[in-house]
């Protein structure tokens, strides 16, 4: 990264053209790569079809430059790598979706545009995180209400995941609830933190009382998810909860207790629910039912293996043999056509994004910003690992969207709002660091 945000942060605003130059170049590069990919897929696979998906995709990717322009105008001094990495992952996802389901490409382009719009709106309205403190319980209530609603009137699509049908659209409430829960945990933990980290002997019961609301919401949402059979989301929420608890309180004993409870709960679920047993058994030995329950995971393995190091090439593999190739199994599809080089690049992009998120969290100005940053980072990291690892049989497969990559509108909105929050956190951190440098007495 040629320019680090802290180094570029200067007391006086730079002229517009000199702001966020690294971001401009990287976003443009990601957009060009995506556009080239779309053109390649079009000419190789659908030469006789309409160019609409390519044009729509290019327009959506150009939207990242619009966001960049907005950040320049607003004089955001935050991280300049977050947006380009999101653009690159979105571009890879768009190209793969066009290749796998050409009928979904225009819609995915629309979802990306919608996500970028949400990003801009969030930058304008949610950037100052004091609402997190004020409306923490409203967030929790909304989140739980969404989950309850899904249990009551949700529709099952793609096996286990539950969706809410609103008119012509299907919503994936889990993605929005993810953000609401991060906000709730951060808001409550920031309030209770001073009381729980006081020096002196610890009193379990008092702690438990203060953490009561957090625990209640966490357990409530887990129960609702188990009801919905959405184990991926359950793992994600619980992981985020533990990570934020650890960051806020530094109580390893709570985290270890939480992990033990997770193990016990998982074992209980395994014995109580047949669908959990099936997931685990299919993970351990997909060959036992190769044509039935093991089919999807086995096809994922074959896709990865057939791709080898260099991949079959875009359009030359057979990822369509995998059920849900453009959603849950998009990563093995990338592995088949772009090879280990492709999967490594994608994981490297995720790793880069993760690193920049935690960098922003570490450099954040104040514990609320830091806690929200760490929560969003944990959510991003866990979610990515659960679906990438699941679709490749590293861990049992539970369907949740791979951030920026998978087809879907709810995920796009949620992920890009998270990017907006992270850019705001990073901006404040950079400005605070610059102020600190200006004041010679401050360490």
């Amino acid at each position, binding site marked *: 990264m040629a320019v680090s945000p802290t180094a570029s942060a200067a007391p006086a605003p730079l002229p517009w053209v000199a702001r966020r130059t690294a971001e401009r170049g990287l976003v443009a590069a990601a957009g060009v790569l995506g556009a080239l990919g779309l053109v390649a897929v079009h000419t190789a696979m659908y030469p006789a079809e309409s160019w609409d998906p390519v044009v729509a995709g290019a327009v959506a990717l150009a939207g990242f430059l619009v966001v960049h322009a907005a950040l320049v105008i607003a004089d955001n001094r935050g991280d300049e790598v977050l947006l380009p990495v999101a653009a690159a992952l979105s571009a890879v996802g768009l190209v793969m979706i066009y290749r796998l389901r050409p009928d979904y490409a225009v819609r995915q382009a629309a979802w990306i545009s919608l996500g970028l719009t949400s990003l801009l709106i969030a930058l304008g309205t949610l950037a100052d995180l004091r609402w997190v403190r004020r409306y923490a319980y409203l967030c929790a209530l909304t989140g739980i209400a969404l989950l309850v609603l899904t249990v009551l009137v949700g529709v099952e699509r793609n096996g286990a995941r539950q969706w809410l049908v609103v008119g012509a659209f299907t919503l994936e409430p889990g993605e929005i609830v993810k953000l609401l829960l991060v906000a709730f945990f951060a808001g409550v933990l920031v309030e209770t933190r001073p009381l729980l980290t006081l020096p002196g002997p610890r009193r379990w019961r008092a702690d438990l009382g203060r953490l009561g609301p957090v625990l209640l919401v966490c357990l409530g949402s887990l129960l609702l998810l188990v009801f919905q059979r959405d184990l991926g989301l359950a793992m994600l929420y619980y992981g985020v909860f533990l*990570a934020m608890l*650890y*960051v*806020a309180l*530094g109580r390893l004993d709570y985290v270890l207790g939480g992990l033990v409870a997770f193990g016990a709960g998982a074992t209980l679920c395994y014995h109580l629910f047949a669908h959990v047993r099936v997931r685990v058994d299919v993970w351990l030995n997909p*060959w036992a039912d*190769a044509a039935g329950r093991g089919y999807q995971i*086995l*096809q994922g*393995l*074959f896709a*990865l*293996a*057939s*791709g*080898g*190091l260099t991949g079959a*090439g875009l359009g030359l*593999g*057979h990822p369509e*043999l995998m059920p849900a190739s453009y959603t849950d199994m998009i990563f093995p599809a990338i*592995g088949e056509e772009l*090879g*280990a080089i492709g*999967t*490594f690049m994608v*994981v490297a992009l*995720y*790793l880069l994004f*993760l*690193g920049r*998120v*935690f960098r922003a*969290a*570490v450099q954040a100005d104040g*514990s609320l910003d*830091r*806690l929200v*940053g*760490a929560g969003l*980072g*944990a959510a991003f*990291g*866990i979610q*990515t*690992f659960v679906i*990438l*690892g699941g679709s*490749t*049989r*590293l861990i049992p497969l539970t369907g949740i969207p791979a951030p920026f990559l998978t087809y879907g509108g709810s995920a796009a909105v949620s992920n890009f709002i998270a990017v907006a929050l992270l850019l705001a956190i990073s901006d404040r951190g950079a400005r605070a660091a610059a102020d600190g440098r200006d004041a010679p007495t401050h360490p």
Partner: protein
Amino acid sequence: MLRRTRNVGRLLAGLFAVLLAYLAFVQVIWGPQLAASPQNPRLALAAERIHWGRILDRRLTVLADSVGTGPLQVRRYPQGAAFAHVLGYRSRRYGLTGIERREDLALLGLPITDPWEVLQEAFGRTPEGNDVVLTLDAGIQQAAVRALGNVRGAVVVLDPRTGAVLALVSRPGFDPSAVDAQWAVLSRDASAPLYDRATQGQYPPGSSFKTVTLTAALGSGRVHLADPVRCPEAIDVGGALIHNFEHEQLGQISVLQAFVASCNTAFVQIGQRTGAQAVAAAARAFGLGQPVPFDLPTSSGYVPPPRDLGARGLAQIAFGQGSLLVTPLQMALVAAAVGNGGTMMTPFLVSQIRAPDGRIRQTFTQRGSRNVMAASLAGEVAQAMVQVVQSGTGTAAQLPGVLVAGKTGTAENPHGNTHAWFIAFAPADRPVVALSVIVENGGVGGQVAAPIARQVLAAALQIQSAAAGRP
């Protein structure tokens, strides 16, 4: 809080590192083997856009080739049913078997790694698979098919010096190019024509197993060829009478004469002197009771564990009955090991993979070996087998000018008439051919199987010496 934030980031980055290592394993290290799994539907899809390679015998006679392209590509087997079980079939509906299955990747030329070839395919050229060259000799194979005739049975011919399989015949056969059309008949036929008797048929070995018992007896040091042994009409073992074939009785004879005349009651005593442990150990040393490592699927047969053998069990396996089961391939290897000075060469079928332009991509000369017994012991057993053909039960296998070593077997079984067995190698002093013959419910080994063996040996020796004369 700073440190803890970093810790969470590090932990998650660690998970990603695990994911990267795992991907490297699945895609690059395990990948080629995993992608070659017959359960990978990509192979069948690839097969539709590739011109399948040919299968050739060791003199490059075409055993399988194909015409047409894409979904209209048709596999042809010019030698008809003779090679059916070795080659297998390539059916869009019923899948692949035999060499077609085993060498599918080579025949499809996958994975295509040469960037030049990938480019050519992108410009519309049909990629061509490799040719697979087998160790089989069409002349010997056809001779074995003719010699067996219209029976249920199998013939396995090997080169004992290398383990190269020269002929592998199972009868009844089928036309591999007509599997789709005749499936209903073939799959229901009571004589099981789709079943490869040579590698998978499990039969009691009968007296051909006395070769193993004799090896165990002489190897134990407790029995010698010249030792006296009685050959009564029947012998009492633990209250049950064991009879000789056709109530034969020879009185007081030597161990060698007992082998040559195939006297069951004498072999009961030889087995008792040798002990169950030693007999079972010799059987295992010959590879019986285990699947033969081979290019085609093989059955293991059965050798009872010695601790389960009572006095009667030992008496029965001594002359090849009881619960013993062997495959024709295993018995051909027994003959080959004796002929090759006690060293059993691991059998193999695929000798070369050739590119479509004839360039040799891979050559296989040997698959390893196992040491069954000392060369001196093998020499003694071989001498006894020569006597069997010269003056014993196997005289029907004699050839003019060539010393043949053999052993007959007439195996009682629950399915009717006895199975006729013959195992042999020739020339006895420096064998270039070893074989086994079985005719299911065919009758007496010396009368039914030995003449078949003679015809196959004659053809094989002639072809082998001609092959040796070639530069």
